[in-house]
């Protein structure tokens, strides 16, 4: 589903991703952890070309991400991304947030999309918030709208970029529950997070990134309980 080959990414002189390679297969849930500045978020942003890479190849479901606009837009439509700061459209209701992309990108019919969007909002537990604007929603509710918005494009791959980091602790669970359900439904997911409990429970594979490289990877049990890498041990020591 995802193939990243020898990717290098720079911000000016800063070398953010260093010769990074990674493969994710269909239905796999991969959790990416690592200290801040290790390139986790940048990796996600490169996977749907919100950032361009300087060298290397990125393939998503058989399409090469390069400078071709048609490729980029085709891939973006298939790859959902959810951000730390929700990034809902503040001038649209929850329902309209979810409906917008299927309407204007997929050019599907209003009635059909509305039905699906409502179903999606119900699925994430927001049946009573359908006509509400983002400013009137809690952080956890906003993030669930953001997830519904991404899902309504029927993506083949979902990227989650520290989606619970901006939430009050008591709101984290409602978002994680939605993500767990999604994982159980067989969605291919790449999740950047600091929620180790989530990683243990749903991750098929945990990847530890440090200074732009994949330093260690394996099942949650392998990575958390028997870390081989020194940096990984230090990192775990700090957060656990």
């Amino acid at each position: 589903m995802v193939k990243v080959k020898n990717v290098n990414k720079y911000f000016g002189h800063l070398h953010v991703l260093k010769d990074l390679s990674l493969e994710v297969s269909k239905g796999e849930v991969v959790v990416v952890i690592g200290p801040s500045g290790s390139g986790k978020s940048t990796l996600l942003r490169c996977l749907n070309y919100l950032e361009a890479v300087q060298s290397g190849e990125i393939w998503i479901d058989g399409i090469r991400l390069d400078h071709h606009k048609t490729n980029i837009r085709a891939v973006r439509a298939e790859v959902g991304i959810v951000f730390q700061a929700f990034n809902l459209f503040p001038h649209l209701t929850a329902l309209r947030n979810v409906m917008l992309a299927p309407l204007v990108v997929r050019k599907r019919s209003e009635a059909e999309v509305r039905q699906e969007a409502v179903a999606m909002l119900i699925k994430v537990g927001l049946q009573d918030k359908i006509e509400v604007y983002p400013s009137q929603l809690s952080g956890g509710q906003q993030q669930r709208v953001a997830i519904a918005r991404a899902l309504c494009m029927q993506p083949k791959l979902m990227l989650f970029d520290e989606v619970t980091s901006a939430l009050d602790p008591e709101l984290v669970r409602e978002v994680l529950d939605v993500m767990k359900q999604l994982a159980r439904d067989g969605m291919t997911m790449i999740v950047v997070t600091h929620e180790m409990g989530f990683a243990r429970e749903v991750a098929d594979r945990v990847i530890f990134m440090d200074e732009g490289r994949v330093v260690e990877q394996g099942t949650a049990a392998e990575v958390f309980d028997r870390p081989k890498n020194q940096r990984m041990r230090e990192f775990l020591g700090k957060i656990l």
Partner: protein
Amino acid sequence: MPQYVQDRLNLYDAVLLLQGLGNTVALCLLGLSLGTLIALFVGLARASHSRWLSWPAGLYIEIIRDSPLLMQLYLVFFALPLLGLNVPIFMAGVATLMVNSSAFMAEIVRGGIQSVAKDQWDAARGLGMGYPQVMRWVVIPQAFRVMVPPGVGLLIGLIKDSSVISVISYLELTRVGQILTEKTFLSFQVFGIVAALYFALCYPLSRLALYVERRLKVSG
């Protein structure tokens, strides 16, 4: 008092004033709406990441913003005919208002567009939207809110500044006022009425802007 001097305003003068008002409305309606339309494109170009678009737009804006409205009017009315382009008096007024408002309004459009957080672009792009779609559905609706107060302020200013067009003898409100004072010497009364008519044009616009602003605030 010589025979030809009137000592009061009569019905014909009132009709003339209303005609002047109508002409001012026509000038502004045409000039300012065309100007706003152009401003949308100039502002988009100015906010663009492409230097080929943003630089010429910037040049256009600066040249017009930094030269007097009166000189622009003179250039359109007196200089264009030298190039063999005869501009009817009404069209000269419309063109001047259009050009002038387009530059100022373009800056307001640019400011509005740039006030929308980059996050919104990420979210919209991440959903597969292209540049025109992001603009149309995500950025412009949010930018519009920011643009309403300064935009209406600009329009009100230009409606009043359209009085400058009196110098090319177009019979707009101010020119009518000048003619009537020359005829009656009732400067205070005549210009008082003229000012009141400008007020009557601008005040509703002001209220409308407040109303629109409040409406937009309620939704999100």
